[in-house]
């Protein structure tokens, strides 16, 4: 009884001890905040990494791709069995995209991916990251009339509206220029808007088009041959629509391309410090893409025009600045690879054991015999995931060290309190309190200090996590410094996940540290000789 009463009284009257556990409080609070934010980040990252990558990836070693895809997919279906949710084939090639921005060509190094519109959505969350709401329902490589963007993005007017205006403006400019020059371009003009051009395109070997949307071939024949025969600097092709092109940019589009948003925009601060996205191109603009044809007999650089039909934003800067998507068929035809693909992606049913299925597939398609690698998305992003995991672990260790330091603070304070209370300890012993009882006074004192400290820390930490975005805004407002810089992270809000188990173990760990820190002083108190303690002044 006296133990509880006394440790309660000590708790109430020794504020210095409360001060010594503020570091426990801070440590616990920080740990909870850090863990929640890290968990939130890594969850978002998992979703996004996984979303783009699907579950299991067959990666061909060669750029020429693997043939006989149908048979391969049939075999995969047989091996994986019921747990397969979707399969798609794709072509991955390195490429360079040139974006025409105010008369300058801005090169971007990308991974050009030809995807099958019909099946790609089955294996990945790709379409959810597209900016046009209708494209999120169904991927299409056609330019939409308008309506790009969402709450997060104020994209300037895009789509056909923009394309027509731009084309009209460019035609005017061209006419003006011609009038000024009045010579040299005369005979080249005749083709503008000509109908024969459209006829020729109608025969292009691309999938059928809606008739009211007269359809662009990957490249007008003339340019295609030029490229094929003259392996020159692709920059020589950079005149976006040469006047003799029969292609009418007001009505036609090239093959659609979907760019990562980080490739097409620059996020920066304006003079007032507001974060703004500057778009280098927008849906409706044409870009020029250079990539290699198949390697047999000799790879050639192909240069083609594409029309940007949408952006995607996965908020993984690695993806958003590195991937561009085009229709699979267009890629296969341009590169002359027949129906070969370089990548096959599998989506499994939820709950399926990725590694087991990967191992099954690897057994069926041994690496010695088949020219591709089979990996899960975790294997592919292993280093990144491991890095995040390691970061979390490190932070946890560091912060627990802070709490351990706080533990030494408690130790010192408790020694002081024991020394201060020496006489009281003598009195208690004279009144018949056993050593164990005296010890437990200080142990329960330490326990309650730890409990108070980590309890307050837990509440503070959880409140902080709950209102983290408000707090970030508040700090921004006070200091003028952006806490969560959207030019660095592509999340507009700080993602957090509170894991009750983590919170519980953090609290338990800190209470344990506080109790451990009070063990030595408590032992000292218990060992005090009653007579000496009573004489102590």
């Amino acid at each position, binding site marked *: *009884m006296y133990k509880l009463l006394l440790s309660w009284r000590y708790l109430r009257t020794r504020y210095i001890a409360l001060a010594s556990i503020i570091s426990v409080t801070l440590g616990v609070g920080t740990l909870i905040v850090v863990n929640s934010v890290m968990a939130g980040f890594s969850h978002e990252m998992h979703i996004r990494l996984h979303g783009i990558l699907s579950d299991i990836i067959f990666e061909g070693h060669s750029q020429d791709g693997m043939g006989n895809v149908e048979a391969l997919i049939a075999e995969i279906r047989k091996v994986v069995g019921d747990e397969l949710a979707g399969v798609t084939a794709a072509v991955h090639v390195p490429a360079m995209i040139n974006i025409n921005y105010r008369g300058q060509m801005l090169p971007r190094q990308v991974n050009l991916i030809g995807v099958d519109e019909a099946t790609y959505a089955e294996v990945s969350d790709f379409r959810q990251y597209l900016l046009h709401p209708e494209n999120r329902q169904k991927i299409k490589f056609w330019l939409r009339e308008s309506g790009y963007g969402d709450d997060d993005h104020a994209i300037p007017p895009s789509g056909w509206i923009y394309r027509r205006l731009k084309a009209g403006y460019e035609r005017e400019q061209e006419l003006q220029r011609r009038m000024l020059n009045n010579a040299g371009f005369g005979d080249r003009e005749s083709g503008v808007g000509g109908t024969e051009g459209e006829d020729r395109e109608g025969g292009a070997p691309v999938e059928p088009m809606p008739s009211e949307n007269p359809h662009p071939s990957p490249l007008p024949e003339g340019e295609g041959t030029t490229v094929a025969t003259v392996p020159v600097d692709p920059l020589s092709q950079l005149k976006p629509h040469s006047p003799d092109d029969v292609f009418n940019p007001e009505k036609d589009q090239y093959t659609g391309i979907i760019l990562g948003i980080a490739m097409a925009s620059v996020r920066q601060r304006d003079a007032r410090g507001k974060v703004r996205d500057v778009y280098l191109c927008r849906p409706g603009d044409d870009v020029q893409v250079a990539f290699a044809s198949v390697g047999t007999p000799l790879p050639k650089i192909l240069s083609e025009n594409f029309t940007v039909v949408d952006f995607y934003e996965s908020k993984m800067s690695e993806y958003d600045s590195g991937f561009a998507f085009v229709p699979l068929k267009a890629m296969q035809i341009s590169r002359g690879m027949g129906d070969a693909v370089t990548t096959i992606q599998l989506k499994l049913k939820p709950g399926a054991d990725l590694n087991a299925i990967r191992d099954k597939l690897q057994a069926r398609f041994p690496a010695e015999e088949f020219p591709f690698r089979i990996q899960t998305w975790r294997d592919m992003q292993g280093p990144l995931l491991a890095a995040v995991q390691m970061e979390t672990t490190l932070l946890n260790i560091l912060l627990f060290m802070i709490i351990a330091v706080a533990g030494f603070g408690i130790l010192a304070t408790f020694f002081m309190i024991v020394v201060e209370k020496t006489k009281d300890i003598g009195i208690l012993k004279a009144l*018949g309190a056993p050593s164990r009882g005296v010890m437990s006074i200080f142990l329960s004192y330490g326990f309650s200090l730890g409990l108070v400290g980590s309890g307050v820390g837990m509440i503070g930490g959880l409140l902080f996590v709950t209102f983290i975005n408000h707090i970030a805004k508040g700090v921004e407002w006070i200091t003028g410094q952006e806490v969560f810089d959207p030019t660095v992270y592509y999340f507009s809000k700080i993602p957090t996940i509170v894991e009750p188990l983590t919170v519980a173990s953090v609290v338990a760990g800190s209470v344990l540290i506080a109790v451990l820190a009070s063990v030595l002083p408590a032992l000292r108190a218990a060992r005090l000789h009653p007579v000496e303690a*009573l004489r102590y002044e």
Partner: protein
Amino acid sequence: MSSTGVRSQESGVRGQGPGTRGRGASAAAITEADPQVLSTEYSVLRIDGAKSAPSATSHSALRVPHSALLAARGLFKSYRKGRVEVPVLKGVDFSVRPGEFVAIVGQSGSGKSTLLHLLGTLDAPDTGEIHFEGNRIDNLPARGRDVLRNKYFGMIFQFYHLLPELTMLENVLAPIMIRFGVWNYFWHRREHVHRAKELLDMVGLSHRLAHKPRELSGGEMQRTAIARALITQPKLLLADEPTGNLDQQTGSEILAILKKLHREQGLTILMVTHDQAIARQADRTVRLVEGKVAA
């Protein structure tokens, strides 16, 4: 009280068997003060506590007067100061009969406080034996000595030694709180508080229950300490210079309380003092000179 002491001593020696020990019995003991039960508890304590608990027939015990409540035989005690061993007690033989008011007088450094600490089992003698109700207590294990101090001895000190964090009422209740666990204490809380208030009333302090020691005068603190010493209805009150820190007026008030306790309730009191005038108030005076009892 004297006859009761003898009777209970006998029952203690004969031993009533460990089966009668229990929380219920101890709770009853504090309220009803049945000496039979107390003694039973004590004998149990001795039996399971002392490793070499000598029986009443051990050679030294034979010389203990049968009627003594507390007896010391051949006590030696020395303290080390660096390398030098300073003898304090050099063979003290001494006993207190039940119901006696004994004063131990001696000059500073004569070892009277040390003797009191040894008798109160706060410290152990180098050689010699201490017997309480015929049972040897100086070699009891720590737990046994704790229980002994808590239940059978009441102690008051020159510097009062109240716990500064507790109110007066809580200070008086402290020995009870030490003895009982949380549930047991709260179960009988009303009886305990009632008794504590009675005791405070008796020492004349019923109006200052909620005050902390620092708000009290020296006399008030010593009265509180007396109430605290009496709450467990001890068989022996050990007083270490109870008036040493008080003015004469207050000191004699405290002494009056002690005398009243002795006279009206037959409480056995052993008081240490350096003041001859105060020592004369006692039934008997024992002079301690250079670590020995002077004739």
